[in-house]
């Protein structure tokens, strides 16, 4: 069993205590999507604003544990200002780090060539399988939001 320091890196606790991009956006033009972790009851709201092809703003509401909150905070920082396409690549890279692969995924394929930066700190979560759902909650909810803009 890996230790706590594998899970709770400094930077995670920082994002947990000082979450970036907390709040709401006006809907519309923004879109709000809600996510729930059925195992623990954590709920999250992700507001996404897209202009043209760009994710111009992201805000996070709801409550959750340090892992889900810090993951949401780091995600918001990572995708804000990115093109929809690049945001999707980040989602994919993050999920790959969490060992979650799309159907049809080739296990021998190289990981997407994306810099995850701070998000790398969440790598340790993989060793705590139950917490993967915490770490990915914001991401799945954000992905749903993005889908609304390309329909």
């Amino acid at each position, binding site marked *: 069993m890996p230790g706590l320091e594998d899970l709770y890196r400094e930077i995670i606790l920082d994002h947990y205590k000082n979450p970036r991009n907390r709040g709401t956006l006006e809907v519309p033009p923004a879109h709000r999507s809600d996510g729930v972790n059925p195992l*623990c009851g954590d709920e999250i709201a992700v507001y996404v604003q897209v202009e043209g092809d760009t994710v111009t703003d992201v805000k996070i509401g709801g409550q959750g544990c340090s892992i889900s909150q810090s993951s949401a905070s780091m995600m918001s920082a990572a995708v804000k200002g990115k093109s929809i396409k690049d945001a999707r690549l980040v989602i994919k890279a993050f999920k790959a780090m969490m060992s979650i692969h799309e159907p049809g995924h080739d296990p021998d394929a190289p990981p997407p060539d994306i810099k995850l930066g701070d998000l790398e700190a969440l790598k340790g979560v993989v060793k705590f399988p139950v917490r993967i759902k915490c770490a990915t909650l914001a991401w799945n909810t954000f992905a749903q939001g993005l889908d609304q803009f390309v329909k």
Partner: protein
Amino acid sequence: MASVAMTLDANCIKRDFPALERIVNGHLITYLDSAASSQKPWAVLRAMDNYYETTHANVHRGVYTTAVEATERYEGARVIFARFVNANSKREVIFTKNVTESLNLVAQSWGNANVGPGDAILYTEMEHHANLVPWQMLAARTGAVLRYVPVTDDGHLDLSNLDTLLDGAKVFTFTAASNVLGTINPVRQLADAAHRAGAIAVCDAAQLAPHMTMDLQAMGVDFAGITGHKMCGPTGVGVLWGRESLLDAIPPFLGGGDMITDVHIDGFTPNELPWKFEAGTPPIAEVIGLGAACDYLSGLVLDDVRAHEIDLTGYAMDVLEARFGDRLKIHGPRDPNARMGVLSLALEGVHPHDISQVLDQQGVCVRAGHHCAKPLMRRLGVGATARASFYVYNERHDVDTLAEALSSASDFFK
């Protein structure tokens, strides 16, 4: 009751439970999740092994020796259980796979036959999903309306409008004790109120049976369900108890072998009680294990089990309050005599998930989440709690370990 001489020696009892010798992350396990599922004593494991190793055969149909013995052990456990809960007759004791199935059985077999459009179904805001969803499904099937008894700020049922809520109700279903708040409900009073209003009373006794004497004659309800794995028994077995007259009147639940008297190619005749409601090969070894669990608990004496838990709960509340003051909230009633040994905790600045994770590093097992009671969590205004729950094998030392571990969680996230 708390003044009763304490005859339980939890430290000694612990040795009956092999899983409590487990080392987790370098620490001897401190198992504080018995409200989710209890550990099993050797006596229960040995009863099941002995059955499989010497006499396993399918029950009810065999003439040969081991088939007769298997049937006797299986039906013998029914008698043990009937006595354990003071049922009138073993015909009223139906074995299911868990209390969830027991409650679904009532909602379907009794519900479909007795509930129609506009009838009210009354439950409470503190129910486990197992006592909500089956009734929601019944309401959707029949057009009945759902109502609930709200929960007060101090974690009790708000009974001020009970008679109004019961007006037009066909059934009032409630838990004997909350698996989140620990609150013990006034079962007899609720049952009597239901009957006065012409409704039947259904009791989810999953959190009652493991911890105190369950006396069906005193409870006065019409149906009651329990689940084996929370009361020292194995997984895979539960019980529905029902009044014989009601069970006789309602149609069967699942169809198949054993629940029939006769089958033709185009129809069947149901069997007598209790087998009418036991379709297919039952959980034979599990029922035998549940019988052994009842014997084990009876040997400890349920009144002493309860006294021990009151003591431990009071001690825990005192210790935690002294140590954490306002930084720690314990949901539910303050009086240990009015509650079970179930402490749902909110620790300032630390999410329940993180509490559970940090505690685990010290071998302390507490559950984090909604405890299958999401409507109640909404009422409490939280997404989750960290829940520590006690059982016969827990002692004051475990409470001290819990307090230590909570301190380190609090420090870690400061």
